[in-house]
């Protein structure tokens, strides 16, 4: 822009460049460098220490033939499907209810959102207590007279992941509700008036007019939920520690355990690279739809 020739381009705007050093280092060294490093070392047979002895895809072969990893992936898929469907549905319904010009809206919103302020550790421990078969909900119902009642998801390996999902939904739906509510408030009041004049029932207005109009909000929410699903770790550690047996293991826990306990770094790197791959599969199409289209238009 400026036509005057300075002695060196490098020193122009020097303060801004100096101030950006932390950002540049983080972007290049940690994000790009760290990721490349992990992917590179996932092709080695590093055990206790990282070592550049390449073994091709061996770690990946071993990974996909380990039952613990397969269980982790299966759990992640179930947990992911439940999180996506239920947090979208419950979050939207709560937002729609709060959007009816009700009294005490702030109170209700505060109640629905407070679990989100709590950590996954706290969430996991509370639900571990509530779902405790000897003292929790199962015991209470049995004491009421229904003695054959059984509800012990955390001790039953076939349904343990659902027990974890309940806790995750309790913690996270408030956030989705808030995002949806913001989306609903962004809809023009005239749309509602027009629908009312035309005599369209409210549920039809929501389903066929409002929800399609909220597409950007839904996409953002979807990306947020998806990013959260892959990261799930603390909740499982607190609630079940992966048990009973390996029934509630998740990929993030597999990575941590192999890196810092089993001292099998190669496996940890390969597993984390698979996690990265799953995120790429979700994010790239979304980024392409969101930003690729805009550039062309």
């Amino acid at each position, binding site marked *: 822009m400026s036509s005057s020739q300075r002695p060196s381009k490098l020193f122009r705007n020097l303060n801004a460049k100096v101030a950006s050093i932390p950002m540049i280092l983080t972007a290049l060294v940690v994000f790009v460098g760290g990721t490349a490093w*992990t992917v590179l070392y996932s092709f080695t047979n590093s055990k206790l220490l990282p070592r550049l002895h390449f073994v091709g895809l061996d770690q990946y072969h071993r990974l996909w033939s380990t039952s613990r990893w397969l269980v982790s992936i299966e759990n992640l898929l179930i947990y992911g499907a439940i999180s996506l469907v239920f947090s979208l549905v419950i979050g939207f319904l*709560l937002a729609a209810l709060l959007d009816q010009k009700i009294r005490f809206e702030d109170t209700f919103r505060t109640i629905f959102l407070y679990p989100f302020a709590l950590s996954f550790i706290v969430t996991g421990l509370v639900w571990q207590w509530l779902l405790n078969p000897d003292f929790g909900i199962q015991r209470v119902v049995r004491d009421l007279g229904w003695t054959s009642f059984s509800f012990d998801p955390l001790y039953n390996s076939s349904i343990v992941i659902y027990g974890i999902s309940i806790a995750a939904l309790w913690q996270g739906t408030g956030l989705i509700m808030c995002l949806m509510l913001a989306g609903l408030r962004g809809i023009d009041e005239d749309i509602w008036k027009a629908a009312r004049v035309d005599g369209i029932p409210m549920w039809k207005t929501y389903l066929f007019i409002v929800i399609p109009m909220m597409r950007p909000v839904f996409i953002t929410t979807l990306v947020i939920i998806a990013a959260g699903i892959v990261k799930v770790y603390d909740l499982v550690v607190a609630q079940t520690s992966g048990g009973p047996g390996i029934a509630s293991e998740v990929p993030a826990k597999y990575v941590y355990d192999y890196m810092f306990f089993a001292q099998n770094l190669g496996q940890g790197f390969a597993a984390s690279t698979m996690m990265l791959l799953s995120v790429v599969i979700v994010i790239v199409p979304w980024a392409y739809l969101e930003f690729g289209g805009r550039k062309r238009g």
Partner: protein
Amino acid sequence: MVDVASLSAGTEARRRDAAGPSGPRPRHVLSRRNIFLYGTLIVMAVYYLLPLYVMIVTSLKGMPEIRLGNIFSPPVEITFEPWVKAWATACTGLNCDGLSRGFWNSVRITVPSVLLSIAIASVNGYALANWRFKGADTFFVILIVGAFIPYQVMIYPIVIILREIGIYGTLTGLVIVHSIFGMPILTLLFRNYFTSMPEELFRAARVDGAGFWGIYLRIMLPMSLPIFVVAIILQVTGIWNDFLFGVVYTRPDTYPMTVQLNNIVNSVQGVKEYNVNMAATILTGLVPLIVYFISGKLFVRGIAAGAVKG
């Protein structure tokens, strides 16, 4: 929201106004719609509040009462002993000085992490908004894309970097890690805020001879306090609630509160004291809960900003 029937009733009432009684139209409080609406909301509210209630109630009971009674029943005999024990004498491994150590560790982690991450990110955002240099946007895009990379991918390289510098296992190391991973979202937050400020302000200051730091400290900083509050809320809750970085980058004597809590509750040795566990759980959740209840709408703004990462 007013439905069609009540709208027409409203015009009718207005027509009758000339002769009839004045004042607002009486509302049907117990209409079927209201019963359904508030009924659903109250049921959901009870569901969301129940775990908090059970936590508090359990923490105030003695162990015999817990074994005999119902988790939902209020305590017959209120005791604060579990709280004292959770804070001061609960054991993790060989240490028996309770959660207090974890609490102070968390304070020593959270305070500098919040300050450092916000200082770095606000200056970054300011440089990106007002002092753009060639290539700046490229780094910014990498930073934002990096926010989506699972932490597990970058954990180990950071261990090596910290070990090389000689701060692996120290609180300093953890503070740096928190500053790094807080950077994408905070930088985005500040960049967007500074970009929305009037350009004339910045130009006028430049004409008056203010430089990079002068404008930041004397104009941008005082004018953007709300966004700083949002950033502080976001970071305090986020860093306080962190578990993964705490467990990876600190040693047992510097464990943050969340890690210590998990160790206390999930330790296999000894008799399980559920009341102590619940007291410890509440104590750990207390800081973010207080931040949440005090900050109110700003918290919502913070998470909305924090959530919209793309």
